[in-house]
């Protein structure tokens, strides 16, 4: 026989003003199975909790209902109190008579009636609660970091410095990400590579970091503390153990006219290449689609070129290499896959709602470039060795027009968000250009200047007031080539008149978008993403680097447009989360998970098909001789997150969600409606 205690809280005046708490306690005292019902001014206070603990002992209560605020507020508090008095914490529940009753109703009679109903519903539920124990799962103290840009590098270093092992996976041939392509960084104008490359080397040399470049995550199984990740090591065409990075092969390759990805197509590279001189690891990769030898072989012709093989003194070139699969066991995963830029007037990678900006002539007018291309031109290690030259004729431009918000903040073009970094880097570009080109004219078209950040507003003001950049508030409607110049036609909304510039070069500050393929990675990790493909954080304010999947964290521009300081802060935050997780011997989880009754389960596996987490496995039921009688569903409690979708789907009702069983729900319905 159940002996339930009901504790009605006045919450000072918050509940008591509208709900007659004493009447609620009295009414509940009449409910069969309720052994004790009282009301008190503040249940969550120390004396209030003592009241509950004392009653549990004195009245030998088997369950507790606290009619007070939302369980999101104090469920933990009261469960802890119940537990310390010797009761199983999961036999304590809360009836929400504050947020869902006293605060939203004025009429005392109906609010009191509702409070009684809500409390009775909980009493009936608690009568059917069974003692549950928290689930304990082991933790593998090893982390996977996906993405080797600045966010991934920072996360990997912080985790490794904290004492845990890290597997860092990067899909490009080298780590470094977009930051390695930048010339200088705002607002301090320090050289990007100078601050980044030491960190890259640190990653490479760290005894606890295993770097896997030219690799991608193939599949993810498991759950917090116990992930099993399969990584595809793409065929490099070069034996990593034999190669010493001398570069003889890249010099020998005769096919040196391939547009370099690192230089955004402004420079050239050979078919066997190291993406940039400071690459980590310093290993070349064979471009299989462009290598003369591999093209010939694929057509069944005889080997046309062996220059790199001949040049390599260590016999490291291996064209026969195949993709390899490596399985790593990790306890936590950090997603730091970064961003790509909005492509103007070109294909948006399958996104039909993004239209591009044909009117800006990108891809047709060679001297219209994007911000990253400008970075490469301005970079000392870039194709022009740091000189700003026009891609069309190599001339120094005397006037450059910079366009902000190209792709961003334009719902008509598919992206309504602000890309956050463009205002800053455009100011930087204008400054860099003015520093390099004496007397050159930098005209910036902007919508607003958003320079919130330490030293940011000062930086944009400096560009305008000290460095002579001309800022024009307005949009550009059209750009076209007229002889040697690009006619830029816009409107100065502050001056209230049309504004035209004859530019030698135009730089488009294009929107930041998540990396292509982020959706498929997110699906492998069971994390959600917004309609732009940015990974969703668990809570926008209070859990900014966690995702909805326990043990998976997010850092950098794959979550939203981010600049370097933001990405690094997020990365360090993920590292602290990961190390916090690893500081546990065992993890404890609420036991709100699904359980299968093998005796009833017919093995239809509808549950397996609807489970968002892949928590349902197959289990053989055997007789004493070991003969398989039937195969039934089984739920891995470590993977199950307790949504209960399987329960509502199961045709034979052989799966139940602990803490939210059908019986408990029906009891609540009945308690209300009779």
């Amino acid at each position, binding site marked *: 026989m159940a002996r339930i205690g009901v504790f009605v809280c006045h919450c000072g005046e918050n509940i008591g003003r509208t709900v007659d708490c004493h009447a609620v306690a009295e009414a509940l005292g009449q409910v069969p199975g309720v052994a004790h019902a009282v009301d008190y001014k503040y249940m969550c206070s120390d004396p209030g909790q003592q009241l509950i603990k004392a009653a549990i002992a004195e009245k030998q209560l088997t369950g507790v209902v606290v009619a007070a605020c939302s369980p999101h507020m104090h469920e933990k508090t009261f469960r802890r109190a119940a537990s310390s008095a010797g009761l199983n914490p999961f036999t304590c529940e809360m009836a929400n008579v504050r947020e869902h009753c006293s605060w*939203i*109703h004025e009429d005392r009679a109906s609010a009191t*009636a509702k409070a009684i109903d809500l409390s009775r519903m909980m009493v009936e539920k608690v009568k059917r609660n069974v003692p549950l124990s928290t689930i304990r799962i082991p933790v593998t103290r090893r982390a996977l970091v996906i993405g080797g840009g600045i966010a991934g590098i920072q996360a990997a270093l912080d985790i490794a410095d904290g004492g845990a092992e890290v597997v860092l996976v990067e899909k490009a041939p080298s780590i470094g990400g977009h930051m390695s392509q930048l010339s200088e960084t705002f607002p301090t104008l320090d050289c990007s590579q100078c601050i980044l490359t030491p960190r890259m080397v640190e990653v490479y040399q760290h005894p606890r970091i295993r770097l896997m470049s030219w690799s991608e995550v193939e599949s993810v199984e498991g759950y917090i503390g116990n992930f099993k990740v399969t990584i595809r090591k793409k065929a490099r065409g070069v034996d990593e153990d034999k190669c010493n990075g001398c570069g003889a092969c890249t010099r020998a390759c005769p096919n040196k006219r391939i547009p370099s990805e690192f230089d955004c197509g402004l420079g050239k590279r050979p078919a066997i290449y190291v993406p940039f001189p400071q690459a980590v690891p310093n290993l070349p990769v064979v471009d299989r689609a462009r290598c003369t030898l591999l093209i010939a072989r694929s057509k069944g012709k005889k080997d046309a070129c062996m220059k790199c093989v001949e040049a390599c003194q260590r016999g490291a070139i291996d064209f026969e290499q195949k993709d390899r699969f490596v399985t790593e066991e990790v306890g936590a995963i950090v997603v730091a896959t970064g961003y790509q830029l909005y492509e103007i007037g070109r294909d948006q990678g399958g996104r039909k709602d993004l239209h591009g900006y044909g009117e800006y002539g990108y891809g047709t007018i060679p001297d219209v470039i994007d911000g990253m291309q400008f970075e490469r031109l301005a970079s000392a290690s870039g194709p022009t060795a740091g000189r700003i030259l026009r891609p069309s004729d190599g001339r120094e431009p005397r006037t450059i027009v910079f366009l902000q918000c190209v792709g961003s903040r334009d719902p008509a073009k598919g992206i309504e968000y602000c890309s956050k970094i463009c205002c800053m880097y455009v100011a930087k570009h204008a400054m860099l250009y003015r520093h390099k080109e004496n007397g050159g004219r930098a005209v910036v078209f902007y919508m607003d200047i958003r320079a919130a950040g330490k030293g940011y507003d000062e930086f944009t003001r400096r560009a305008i007031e000290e460095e002579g950049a001309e800022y024009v508030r307005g949009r550009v409607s059209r750009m076209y080539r007229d002889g040697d110049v690009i006619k830029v036609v816009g409107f100065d909304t502050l001056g209230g008149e049309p504004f035209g510039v004859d530019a030698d070069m135009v730089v488009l500050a294009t929107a930041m978008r998540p990396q292509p393929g982020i959706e498929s990675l997110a699906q492998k990790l069971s994390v959600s993403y917004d309609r732009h493909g940015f990974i969703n954080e668990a809570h926008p304010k209070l859990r900014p680097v966690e995702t*909805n999947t326990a043990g998976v964290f997010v850092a950098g521009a794959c979550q939203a447009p981010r600049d370097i300081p933001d990405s690094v802060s997020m990365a360090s935050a993920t590292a602290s989360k990961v190390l916090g997780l690893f500081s546990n011997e065992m993890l404890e989880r609420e036991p*709100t998970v699904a359980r299968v009754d093998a005796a009833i389960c017919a093995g239809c596996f509808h549950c397996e098909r609807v489970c968002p987490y892949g928590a349902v496995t197959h289990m053989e039921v055997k007789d004493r001789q070991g003969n398989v009688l039937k195969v039934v569903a089984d739920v891995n409690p470590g993977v199950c997150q307790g*949504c209960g979708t399987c329960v*509502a789907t199961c045709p034979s009702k052989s799966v139940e969600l602990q803490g939210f069983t059908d019986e408990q729900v029906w009891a609540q319905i009945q308690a209300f409606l009779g």
Partner: protein
Amino acid sequence: MEGTATATGFEPRITAFVCNWCTYTGADLAGTSRLQMAANTRIVRLPCTGRIDPAFVIKAFERGADGVIVSGCHPADCHYTAGNYHARRRFAVLRELLSFMGVDERRVTFSWVSASEGAKWRDVVNGAVERVRECGPFESYRALAGGV
């Protein structure tokens, strides 16, 4: 229910099945924002709309509910990634079934209310109460369910 008497004297009894992460939290927000609403609903908290068995809705009517609300996270916002999609499919079918059975559609309200939509929750509740009030007591179903 001992609610205040209105002109018609009919106070609908409405059971609301909501998910823990979006709508329950949204209803909490309505509370912290002190948004006044009709006192006719009783919330049953479940982890996810995916857990809400259509049988709960039937059961509620059988037990004498005049209306039912089912509400969870917006599509793409599910705490459990996809539970609300399963719920959406399930309740699309349930709606057809109920209308086939002759249940007035106004008695069943499906909605998405996020954790930040306290005001929307108030509107959902008030709207449902208003519609059910128009329908009147659901005695025909109770009679059909008989002595269950």
